[in-house]
């Protein structure tokens, strides 16, 4: 089974890279981009076939390594192959 993990900065944490992207988009003529937040996308392939167990394990991976919960949130999506 595959999993998609998105790691994003928490609301209220300044994202200077997102701001720079927003300004660059404006410079390219893309008007009306009101905000940009940059994050990470991590794709994992798991041997586990039980969705519940996979989710529990992924949650632990996120808390222990994939995200820094001081500044980041994460979401986990299981993807059927």
């Amino acid at each position, binding site marked *: 089974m595959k999993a998609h993990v998105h790691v994003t900065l928490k609301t209220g*944490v*300044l994202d*200077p*890279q997102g701001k*720079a992207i927003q300004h660059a988009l404006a410079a390219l003529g893309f008007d009306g981009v009101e905000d940009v937040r940059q994050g*990470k996308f991590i794709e994992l392939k798991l041997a586990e076939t039980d969705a519940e167990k996979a989710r529990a394990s992924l949650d632990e991976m996120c808390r*222990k*390594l*994939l995200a*820094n919960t*001081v*500044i980041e949130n994460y979401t986990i999506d299981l993807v059927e192959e």
Partner: protein
Amino acid sequence: MKSAVIVFPGSNCDRDLAVALEKVTGFRPIMVWHGEADFDKVDLIALPGGFSYGDYLRAGAMAARSPVMKEVVKRANRGVPVLGICNGFQVLTETGLLPGALMRNANLKFVCKDVWLKVERTDTIFTNRYARGQVIRIPVAHHDGNYFADADTIRRIEDNGQVAVRYCDADGSFSPASNPNGSIGNIAGIFNEAGNVLGMMPHPERLIEPALGGADGRGFFESVMQELVA
């Protein structure tokens, strides 16, 4: 005084740190590779600057989970002094030994220059050789030195007096211009609650004798020395 410098793949200030420690303490530190799960008993553990594991995932994230850091965390919790400089500071926040996180510099640029720092505490094992409020000049060289913690954490570390040094102007005053990276409260270095762990973005090991352009950084190493010998 025996010390250890922890070396990760991608560390690049480990030798400078070792030279500084040897000059000040008179003993050559042991160099401990990241894969070592155990090492000799030492009086000080130092984590150097650099780009451990190429800054993969987040600066310090991989190093914080390396075998040697399990032992460093264990010893830190027993009271052994631990000093993390630059990438070492990032590693310490990633292990949870120090609160908060170091984020990308607010202006997105790598900053490499001398900065002025105000020493906030002098009753600690790392800063007893400085005067309270003393302004010192030490270089920074980093891309991710923007100290962040949530409002409750900032309040707690301020109330506890855990801020070791802050970026300031040459006259010791604080202004946005003296803050090289956007750190909250101009924070350049913090202690853990017990005071035996210090993380700082500036590089004291780079200014330990006049031949290098100044000796303002020497006090951090002399302080530990003084504390342990006294």
